[in-house]
């Protein structure tokens, strides 16, 4: 049977249009970050500059506070991802394997936290954290981000635990292991892909968070990447090359994690969409 040519061509063209639309803004970001300053305005709308340079990157890495922002963001997102994954594997396991009286209340509470506008909490959290010395500190951000991400991560981990047969830990318990040993030695290793996906999701979420970071942090020492980049934009809004070089640098960890968790996206987003 001959495949009809016209629909196939239309299909490929439509796919191409989507790929161009998805990648063009990122391409442009990269292009401007490589354009030397003297060509920035004369060759503004050219698809590729006649000369390229890495000077914006070397300036950003050597003479600006961006390496500090980068380090802060890495500390905050990394710690958040690790703590959330530990808490969420415990609570996800409880929701997957036990039936207990408060279960529906816990699920309800977690759903509630996914529904109300987080921006509501900006003012009270600022007021509560100030006397504790947790504003302008990375620890404060980690605590806040951890709590925000635990509900979704719990549902995600639960869906991974649900996929593992119960017989496995029952067999281990007949052999004399306690439930916790069975959880640690048998179930957790089987959920490693789920753990990787949760780590990736939470890392990306914490890496992108803007509003609470803006509210809770002022000054460069504890600024995360979003705060640093926005401050930079409002102060030196003419250094487009440097801003975009910084933007490309901010994109790198997120894109790496995306490639890492790409395979689990469907499962994760489906769990997220259905459950909150």
């Amino acid at each position, binding site marked *: 049977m001959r495949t009809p040519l016209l629909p196939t061509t239309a*299909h*490929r063209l*439509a*796919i191409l249009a*989507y*790929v161009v639309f*998805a990648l063009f*803004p*990122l391409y*442009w970001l990269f292009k*401007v970050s490589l354009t030397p300053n003297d060509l920035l*305005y004369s060759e*503004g*709308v050219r698809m590729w500059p006649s000369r390229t340079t890495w000077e914006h990157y070397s300036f950003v890495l050597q003479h600006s506070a961006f390496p500090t922002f980068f380090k802060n963001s890495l500390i905050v997102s990394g710690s958040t991802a690790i703590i959330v994954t530990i*808490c*969420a594997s*415990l*609570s996800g396991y*409880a929701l997957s394997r036990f039936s207990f009286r*408060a279960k529906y209340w816990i699920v309800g*509470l977690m759903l509630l*936290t996914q*529904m109300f*506008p987080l*921006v*509501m909490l*900006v*003012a*009270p*959290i*600022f007021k509560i954290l100030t006397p504790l010395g947790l504003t302008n500190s990375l620890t404060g951000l980690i*605590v806040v981000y*951890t*709590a*925000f991400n*635990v*509900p979704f991560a719990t549902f995600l981990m639960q869906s991974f635990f649900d996929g593992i047969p119960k017989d496995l830990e029952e067999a281990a318990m007949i052999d004399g292991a306690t*439930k916790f040993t069975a959880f640690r030695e048998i179930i957790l290793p089987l959920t490693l892909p789920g753990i990787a996906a949760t780590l990736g999701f939470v890392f*990306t979420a914490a890496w*992108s968070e*803007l*509003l609470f970071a*803006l*509210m809770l942090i002022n000054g460069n020492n504890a600024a995360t990447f*979003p705060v640093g*980049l*926005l401050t930079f934009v409002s102060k030196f809004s003419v250094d*487009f090359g440097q*801003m*975009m070089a910084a933007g490309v640098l901010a*994109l790198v960890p*997120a*894109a790496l*994690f*995306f490639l890492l968790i*790409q395979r689990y996206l*469907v499962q994760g*987003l*489906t769990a997220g*969409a259905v459950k909150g």
Partner: protein
Amino acid sequence: MSMTADVYDRRQDRRPWQKRLADASEPYLYSAPALILIIVVMLVPLVVGISYAFRDIQLLNPFSGGFIGLEHFETLSKDKAFYVALKNTLWWTGASVFLQFAFGLILALLLDKPFMGRGLVQALVFLPWAVPSFLAGLNWAWLFNPVIGPIPHWLFDLGLMSQPGNILSDPQYAMWGPIIANVWWGIPFFAITLLAALQSIPRDLYEAASIDGASWFQRFWSITLPFLAPTIAITVLLRTVWISNFADLIVVMTGGGPADRTQIVASYIFTQAFKALDFGYASAIALVLLVLLLAYSMLIILLRQTLLNKG
């Protein structure tokens, strides 16, 4: 059956009480860290925030803090900026959700068909989802900037603009900037969820329909859509709530301007708390937003119940 088994179990239970207590508390021990965090960092501030709505709390004024009853709500009912923000929220949410869904569905249908290099294409078109939202906002703000971005020049060449200007500072069209950025950023979410639902539809249904001579559109209408309907309903409804609260792109791209034309309720709350430092008023607006969202959610639940009862 389970009832009698339960009673039987309890009578036969010869475990010492310490052991029974330990077993019963086990799920609570597992959930405790997550629960404590949620309660301390989310639930307590939520309650505190609701109490702020009835108090005079300004960060820079040490004499503020007193209980003022409904005064904030009286101010709010006369606040023109709030009504503008409410109208903008509807427009922002409606346009973003509709466009994200429409383009996401088309993309999912395109990707459902096997072709060479599908894995790579999928990774590329889903990439915007991984871009941090602040960066997506900045990136699009730069694309709309006539100094550095190509879009104003393209619009000028097409004759849609009298001179290459910045759409983000044009009161009439400014909202399109954040909406387009949001669509670019959100298409992958819909495409991924819908693609997962599409791939769970049994393939033999399509084959049977083709043998019976059904056209592509007939197959789409009577097989694909009914199968997708539950996923579509859930994702669209949840995304609506989520996008109406999503202020990042607006804060980054326009800061609510020009002249509040792009201010949505969520960004208005943030502006009141972050720039005006009026925590009391910000919390009052937040409370109104919460009530509106709760009403919306109740409506959805009722609608779902009636639909379920009918089916």
